[in-house]
């Protein structure tokens, strides 16, 4: 079996993996990307709509364009790229780690590295995960799979569509299916507010006259061979109103009910996960509980924009390079999710540096404020015009913010929303 050694191996060649690898290379570290698909770019390749790159490239790009820009940064550098190669086993030993990669073009190879960057992204939650009862006919697709079929494979999965869940991919697909001449009868959302970005509600539903049913649960899928309809039940004051149930006839159901970081390899490697994000618990360097194993992008927590994925992954790449050169954080402060905060990532901050923290709100609110509390004392307040669970928030924790951490044996930073 062929064996190769790098300073770092990045698992996943999407936006996060490419950004991290580029930084590693720029810092003089040898590194490889292992990507299971035939091309770099991950899911961006099938996201042919625009709206990408406003932050990273200062212009509006489609998904494939964004992926191409990222790929240009990697090509011609020293980064080794293995596509069509799946990492099947990780041995995260303390010094030298090994990864076994399977590929039709070279069989199995073993890559050795001092550091691993987890950048595997996420997968879509499916019917089973949200336990929709009923028949099990053909015609039930996750929105991302339907997007692949339409945009890359050139097939039309169905003609009369109901989208369950108002996540961004579902909204984008509602518009996409309308464009190819299909009828999208409804988008059904269990929550009283949409799960996707506001801009997508406007551009994908309002502009196409697609009704959005908020506070409605899909209680049954109907159809023996192919989908024939879905039964929808309104929720009032938290209770299902069965007598108000109605059926929307359709031949296709698209599910857009959330994303889950794909951490099965991480679990195999012994990485500790945060049950709130389903991603690894990471320190201020974005290093997981297993020394030398780092994580960034949607495998760490689900981001709303790829621009933020790249921002985080660049930092991860730079951190891995620092770590490979022997740098370690001297003392770290614990960061915890305070009132109205679903999660914060990373879980630790380095008071001797500037830190970037991502978080998600549990509440929908206008004129909100974000408080940074160090050891239970508010050190800074940031005004936020509008917060909602679907839009990720970020906050810079500067050295000045964290100044009072020194001198405390177990400094704690709490992020609160009010």
């Amino acid at each position, binding site marked *: 079996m062929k064996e190769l050694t790098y300073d770092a191996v990045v698992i996943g060649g999407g936006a996060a993996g490419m950004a991290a690898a580029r930084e590693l290379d720029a810092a003089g570290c040898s590194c490889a990307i292992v990507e299971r698909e035939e091309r770099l770019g991950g899911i961006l390749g099938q996201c042919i709509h625009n709206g990408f790159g406003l932050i990273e490239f200062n212009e509006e790009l489609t998904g494939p364009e964004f992926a191409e820009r990222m790929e240009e940064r990697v090509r011609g550098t020293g980064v080794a790229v293995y596509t069509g190669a799946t990492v*099947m086993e990780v041995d995260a030993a303390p010094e030298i780690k090994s990864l076994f990669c399977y590929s*039709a073009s070279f069989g*199995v190879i*073993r890559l050795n590295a001092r550091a691993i960057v987890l950048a595997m992204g996420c*997968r879509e939650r499916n019917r089973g*995960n949200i*336990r929709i*009862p009923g028949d099990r006919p053909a015609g039930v697709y996750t929105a991302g*799979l339907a997007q692949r079929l339409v945009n890359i494979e050139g097939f039309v999965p169905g003609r009369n569509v109901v989208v369950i869940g108002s996540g961004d991919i579902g909204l984008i697909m509602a518009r996409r299916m309308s464009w190819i001449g299909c009828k999208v009868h409804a988008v059904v959302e269990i929550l009283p507010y949409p799960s996707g970005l506001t801009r997508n509600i406007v551009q994908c539903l309002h502009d196409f006259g697609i009704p959005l049913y908020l506070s409605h649960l899909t209680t049954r899928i109907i159809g023996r061979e192919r989908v024939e309809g879905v039964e929808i039940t309104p929720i009032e004051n938290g209770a299902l109103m069965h007598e108000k149930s109605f059926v929307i006839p359709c*031949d296709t159901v698209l599910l857009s009910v959330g994303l889950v970081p794909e951490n099965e390899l991480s679990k195999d490697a012994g990485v500790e996960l945060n049950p709130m994000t389903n991603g690894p618990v990471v320190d201020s360097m974005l290093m997981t509980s297993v020394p030398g194993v780092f994580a960034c992008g949607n495998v760490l927590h689900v981001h709303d924009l790829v621009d933020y994925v790249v921002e985080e992954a660049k930092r991860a790449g730079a951190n891995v390079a620092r770590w490979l050169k022997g740098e370690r954080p001297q003392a770290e402060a614990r960061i915890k999710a305070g009132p109205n905060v679903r999660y914060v990532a990373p879980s630790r901050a380095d008071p001797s540096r500037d830190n970037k923290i991502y978080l998600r709100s549990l509440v929908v609110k206008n004129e909100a404020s974000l408080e940074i509390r160090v050891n239970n004392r508010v050190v800074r307040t940031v005004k936020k015009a509008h917060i909602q669970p679907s839009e990720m928030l970020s906050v810079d924790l500067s050295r000045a913010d964290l100044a009072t951490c020194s001198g405390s044996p177990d400094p704690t930073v709490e992020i609160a929303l009010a």
Partner: protein
Amino acid sequence: MKTGSGRYDVCIVGAGVCGANIARRLSAYELDVVLVDKYADVSFGVSKGNSGIIHGGFHHGRQHLKARLEIQGAMMFDRLRQELDFPFKRCGIVVAAFHEDEMRAIEQLYMQGVDNGVIGIEMCSRERMLELEPKLNPDVLGGLWVPGGGIVEPYRFVFSLVESARKNGVELLTDFKVSAAARSGDEWTVRAEDGRSIKARYVVNAAGLFADEVSAVFGAEEFAIKARKGEYYLLDRLSKARTERVVFPVPTSVSKGMLVIPTVEGTVLIGPTADMVDDKGDAATTREHLEKILSSARAMIPAISENDVITSFAGLRPTLGDDFYIEMSKKVPAFAQVAGIQSPGLTASPAIGEYVKDLLKKAGLKLKEKVDYDPFVGKRPHVKDLSPYEVDQLAAADPAYANMVCRCEKVSEAEIVEAVRAGHTTLDGIKYFTRAQMGRCQGGFCTYKIMKIIMRETGLSYSDITKNGGESRMLKDEL
């Protein structure tokens, strides 16, 4: 596939676990045998949606035919696994009691098991139960331990049986829905809905849920098969709730209760419910029942979490009285009834194969052993069970073994291609054969890849790709 103009000695209607066992058993003799099924693939009826348990032989008294066949059948599985290479493991069964009343019921089961000759059966204290199955609710009072009980992948078992039968000359006709039959001379003419017809001297009715309808088509006995629905949840292989043993509650008079089953392939199955339904096509799941399954299973194994749920499904069991109905028809000649094969039908099925072979012999079928009968089917490599070094060697001969199609269940392109070449050309057929689409993403990543492989290998158009045959088409159009 043969066009269906042939003459046969025996026609078996229904390619579920009973039909497949009977076909394979008869394939050892100098006979022309045809196995027909109304679905697009074998094992698409009752045999695909059940608990996959090799029962312990203590649930029913030996006055029942089903108990005698259960015990005999259970003992045949070790040899069958050697010959047929399907996933099977004797992980043992525990029955957990949580009340004094239940302990008395356990004692009854124990006596019945001893009377039936169950090997190794024992009554257990609380300590013994927790030692055998540490994930049990610590409130357990005691229970029963049956080390010979086991788990099997039911569809894989059927696939292997059919593969073996075909290797030994049995013909398989799928999408063959029997719609008419007539007897002339010493031969049955059996017609399918699509116009195909075959002739056979003997017919075996192993049509599962539809055995009553098939019996009527042949003018044989009138009876009514009622469907009892069982709903299940499947949990992720990384679930903390994965037990070492099959865990049963104390049974009621109606059913064996809801179980926790560590499947041979590493996932966890919980269920089933037991509800009579009027419609034999109704395999829909319901919210109320699924909630019931979770709470019942959690009462025994507290670590069960709804966060681990991958999917839910329902299976239908064909019920007819309280015992199997296996005998030659008293009304029409050369027609064997194999009906009402509910639990423990899977366990009993190899013995049913023997039993029906003997029935046919008594009814005049000449059995002459084939000199070249080969009971073995070739072992197929599964990437998920191999080390990287072994996969590297396989890939040297066929690189498709290193091209991963299903990441969740670790299935390679080569395995998908084998499934297609073995005749499984629907998405569900490939799922049952390879496990691709059966894992935590439920096909989210691999479905389009599998569709492309089917099209490439078979030349089928996109519009012919179905989930499980019939009108279950996956794609409506192309751009």
